[in-house]
């Protein structure tokens, strides 16, 4: 048995999920409030520090509200965990876990870094180096909707039920656009391994920024239009998939109280919250990986260097996290700009517009590839 492999995998799993994703979730809940506040000309949470006065000190240690996520978490734990009488208990308890687990599972195939040289061995910075990366992600990510539907169904009351139904119909209509929009990308790369896709982009320029390596050829620039369409459709479908603002109909407060998690409280609600944000982070990670070069540093193809040194791998990880953070900011920026769609508009947009656009884009890419590769 290869103990090195087992040990490094364990470290990668626990490190990536517990030291990267979950702190990212916590920080993005703070960032969400800060960004929303700044966009609306407010200050946002700026009070919570280390409450030293509780322990008898003279003054609190102010941290400009950076401890806010901890305070939120503490609040969630201390709240009463209420299970209403009219719910289906088993499914009611199962639903929050079913939302969070798929969101965390999908991070297995996202390459969060290049390589790291540990004790003379190259360690690939991805938990599971699958050859079907995007397919795995889609397969697992769409399971997340079961949690929402189950929550709506098990809650046994009107608003959660409507939220659940909306979520499932929205998922179906946008999953198609999501899947179809990624087909041209895979056609261009001729590769389904996300790690290899990023390495290719590291060598030859990002998909949306082909400015070095082979990316400077006219062939790549000719592909920029279909790739742009793919990017836009994929991003918008990702917004719908993660139930973010212009498409947050499953939980829209103005119509459905709180949608599918109306009946939930305490840590069970926090699980939905965690799942939603984790899905957003993984979604951003996937978009960054496919279109924006993953961990690669722009203009500097450094994958080979990372195989022999340990610091380059860390730098790549930092690069990946920066890109993801920037994309999360984009998610929030959009959330506090656009109003929610009406449900029929949402359906129309998904079925009549994006589905056709993504389908036409596949043929357009094929056509361009046929001309280009000759």
């Amino acid at each position, binding site marked *: 048995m290869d103990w090195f492999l087992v040990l490094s995998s364990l470290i990668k799993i626990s490190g990536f999920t517990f030291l990267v994703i979950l702190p990212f979730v916590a920080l993005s809940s703070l960032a969400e409030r800060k960004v929303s506040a700044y966009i609306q000309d407010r200050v946002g949470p700026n009070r919570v520090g280390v409450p030293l006065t509780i322990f008898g000190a003279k003054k609190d240690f102010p941290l400009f509200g950076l401890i806010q996520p901890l305070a939120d978490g503490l609040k969630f734990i201390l709240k009463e965990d209420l299970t209403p009488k009219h719910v289906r208990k088993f499914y009611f308890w199962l639903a929050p876990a079913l939302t969070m687990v798929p969101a965390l599972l999908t991070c297995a195939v996202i390459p969060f870094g290049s390589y790291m040289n540990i004790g003379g061995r190259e360690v690939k910075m991805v938990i599971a180096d699958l050859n079907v990366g995007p397919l795995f992600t889609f397969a697992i990510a769409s399971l997340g909707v079961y949690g929402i539907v189950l929550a709506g169904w098990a809650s046994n009351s009107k608003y959660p039920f409507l939220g659940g139904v909306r979520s499932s119909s929205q998922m179906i209509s946008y999953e198609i656009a999501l899947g179809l929009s990624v087909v041209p990308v895979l056609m261009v790369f001729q590769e389904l391994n996300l790690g290899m896709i990023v390495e290719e982009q590291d060598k030859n320029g990002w998909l949306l920024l082909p400015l070095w390596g082979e990316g400077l050829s006219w062939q790549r620039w000719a592909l920029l239009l279909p790739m742009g369409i793919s990017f836009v459709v994929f991003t918008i479908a990702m917004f719908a998939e993660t139930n973010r603002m212009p498409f947050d109909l499953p939980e829209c407060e103005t119509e459905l109280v709180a949608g599918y998690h109306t009946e939930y409280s305490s840590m069970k609600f926090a699980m939905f919250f965690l799942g939603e944000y984790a899905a957003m982070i993984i979604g951003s990670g996937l978009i960054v990986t496919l279109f924006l070069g993953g961990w690669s540093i722009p203009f500097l193809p450094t994958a080979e260097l990372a195989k022999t040194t340990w610091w380059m791998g860390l730098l790549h990880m930092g690069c990946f996290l920066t890109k993801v953070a920037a994309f999360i900011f984009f998610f929030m920026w959009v959330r506090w700009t*656009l109003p929610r769609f009406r449900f029929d508009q949402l359906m129309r947009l998904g079925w009549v517009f994006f589905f056709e656009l993504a389908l036409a884009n596949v043929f357009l890419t094929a056509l361009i590839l046929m001309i280009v590769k000759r």
Partner: protein
Amino acid sequence: MAYVVERPKLSLAEKLYFPSILKGLKITLGHFIRLMRGRTKVTMQYPEEKWDASLPAHYRGAPTLVTDEVGRERCVACQLCEFICPPRAITITPEQIPTEDKWAKVEKRPREFKIDMIRCIYCGMCEEVCPEQAIFLRKDYAITGTTREEMVHDKKRLYELGGVRDGLVNKWNELK
């Protein structure tokens, strides 16, 4: 004749919907950046910053009792404020001023004067009705307490808050 409302003709950019999204994003980013650079005037950070200095002269804060320039309590326990008080926050227990007292000719003074600050609505009717100008609304607005008893201001507390106010009423002066 029926009036026909002209439907607006949408340009292609408006029909596409996408340019207006970008326009919206630009506006929100503008707000974001302006606040980051400290250009936006934001709300006051209350406990650290206060608006005490810019309170207007007619501000109606907590009602208080005042003494005059010679240290006599102005209130003569006529109970007009008690009767006018819309939420009935004021309770006065009058007593007679003993004959050996310097101010015996005033005849009455409050033994106890209580204002329930939980009931008080800061309307200022007590100040308006007072013939002796003994009760005034001061600028204290942060009246807090941890118990109900603490929220009832008694005579001592009311004089503490009110302090001395001279002039205006000379009715009870020796000189007169």
